[in-house]
């Protein structure tokens, strides 16, 4: 093995990448777009509000107090509807998902205490927000009942964060985006470049020189590691600038990214070897990476998935990268991070060895 040849190839690869403006743009735009989209979604989750349409048919005092209680929850935005409006027609015409009707006898029933004062909550149950609105309305009703009955509060919840540093949702998802970026960059680059060089004859020409397959593969794997680190930096910078992310960069995280890059570079080599041409290699890479994208915990926590999907996730390399990065960058769980790093390191050796062994530059 000659280091000089590897360095020459590495330099040339970097030069060609810089000259390919489309590749430069998408390499950095893809993870940045992901962080911007997820950042926008998750940063708004803490202060999300839901609209509740209220028709107050009661002229009395308690309906006003009840509505004030709903508003004070801080979760609901109250839209008042005229008392003479037809409820069914209004809901249909305005695509309303949560509608509260306070009957005319509400104050009277609350005041005399002999009859239950009903409010009517009409909801589109297919909407995810319906359970939130229902919970808030029930909480206000309970609070109203407690105040009216003069009962004492026996149990209260004192909320606290599990993770350190006052982390937000976006902090939890950022390692997943780093894992996803490493996977897509390495798999698609390697299958693409191998298939292209094979079909265009560049491998044939390279095979006429003393440059070996192993030297070439090592050069391109090193290039992918460098490129993924550049993407990771851009992800973190965007995250910090726009969403105030809190991440700890650890040596385990760096090793995890390197091991992940090698795993996915090896996977890209294997995919291209078993594909007829660049198009079929690209399709095969999509078929393999898409399930990993959604089932390895990049976008959703593994715990939220059915158990059989969690079992499938256990055989996906990206799962170990995502879990390991979260362990070390978010939770500070060194033991679990080292376990995931160990799994990734073994997979990296196996995938790179298979990829190197089976890849070929010329026909037999």
């Amino acid at each position, binding site marked *: 093995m000659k280091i000089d040849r590897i360095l020459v190839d590495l330099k040339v690869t970097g030069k*060609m990448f810089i000259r390919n403006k489309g590749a430069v743009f998408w390499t950095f735009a893809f993870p940045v777009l992901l962080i911007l989209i997820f950042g926008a979604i998750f940063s708004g989750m803490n202060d999300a509000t839901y609209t509740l349409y209220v028709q107050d048919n009661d002229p009395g005092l308690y309906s006003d107090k009840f509505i004030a209680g709903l508003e004070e929850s801080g979760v609901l935005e109250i839209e008042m509807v005229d008392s003479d409006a037809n409820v069914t027609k209004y809901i249909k015409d305005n695509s309303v998902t949560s509608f509260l009707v306070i009957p005319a006898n509400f104050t009277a029933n609350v005041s005399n205490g002999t009859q239950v004062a009903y409010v009517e909550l009409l909801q589109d149950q297919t909407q995810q927000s319906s359970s939130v609105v229902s919970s808030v309305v029930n909480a206000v009703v309970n609070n109203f009942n407690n105040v009216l009955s003069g009962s004492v509060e026996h149990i209260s919840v004192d909320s606290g964060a599990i993770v350190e540093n006052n982390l937000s949702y976006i902090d939890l998802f950022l390692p997943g985006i780093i894992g996803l970026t490493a996977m897509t960059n390495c798999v698609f680059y390697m299958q693409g470049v191998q298939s292209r060089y094979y079909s265009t004859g560049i491998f044939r*020409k390279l095979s006429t020189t003393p440059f070996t397959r192993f030297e070439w593969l090592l050069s391109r794997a090193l290039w992918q590691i460098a490129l993924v680190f550049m993407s990771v930096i851009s992800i973190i910078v965007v995250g910090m600038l726009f969403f105030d992310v809190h991440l700890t960069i650890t040596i385990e995280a760096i090793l995890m990214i390197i091991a992940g890059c090698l795993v996915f570079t090896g996977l890209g080599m294997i995919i291209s070897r078993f594909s007829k041409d660049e198009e079929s290699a690209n399709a095969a890479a999509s078929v393999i990476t898409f399930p990993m994208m959604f089932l390895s915990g990049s976008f959703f926590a593994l715990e939220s998935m059915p158990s059989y999907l969690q079992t499938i996730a256990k055989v996906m390399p990206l799962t170990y990268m995502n879990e390991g990065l979260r362990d070390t960058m978010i939770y500070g769980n060194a033991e679990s991070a080292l376990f995931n790093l160990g799994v990734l390191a073994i997979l990296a050796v196996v995938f790179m060895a298979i990829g190197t062994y089976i890849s070929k530059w010329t026909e037999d």
Partner: protein
Amino acid sequence: MAGHVIEVKDLVKRYGDLKAVDGTNFHVDKGEVFSILGPNGAGKTTTVEIMECLRKPTSGTINVLGFDVAKEAREIRKKVGILPQEFNTYDLLTVRENIDYFGAMFDRRIPTQELLDAVNLNEKEDVFYKNLSGGLKQRVGVAIAMVNDPEIIFLDEPTTGLDPKARREVWDIIRDLKKRGKTVILTTHYMEEAEILSDRLAIMNDGKFIAYDTPRAIIKEHGYGTLCVIKSGSRAVADMLKAQGLNCELKENDVHCWMQNKADLQIIFRQLESSGAYYDEVLVKRSSLEDVFLRLTGRHLVEEV
């Protein structure tokens, strides 16, 4: 044998049931241009790619510069230059950068400037490879094949797909390589190219060498000699010349006479003049490699560009 830089004995290459190369034997001398001529699928590229260590032979002994291709490919690669069929290199590198890149892969190398001079690419040195014409791309390929100052240069169909002007430019480079003392192995399906450039050549068909010698010797052995065509001649003209002992016949509207020697031509002109027979013109054609191929295989080599 002294002077042989390549020796091939009983070379066989099979792909399943297909015998791509079927027991060929030949040698290449130092400093000569040796061509393998044949139609697509004849086995030319397979033969040279085995010599280039890009493919493994099924059987046979192949020795290049004293090294066995089966065991010493690494040594052979250092000493030979190769322009593969349908050569390609990095689109987003300039001509100079591409030559530099491949030069850096070898311990021994010729300075890039010298190579640019050799293939006359100085004006294009800063142009991206992707923006070059087909002829210029082939010249880059030849420069890269020369980058390690090889003793033998393999050029696998270097002019396929090029226009006539670009083809002639590549021919000039091949002649220059010969002047520099390089041994050139050329594969082509253009008979004119092989005839003009080669010191010796082999005609290959269905995996076998069907002729193997200098172009002149092959034409002499397998050609029809010299043909005189009397355009728009008549059966009467053909019969008249036959009566003089010439080998003539009417083919479509022309009279074809195969001549044994120069005196036959004098007889033809004398007879035409004295008889006053009508004809448009008289053409004299020497046998070509195409005619040899047609005669040996019963089919044409290729449609010329």
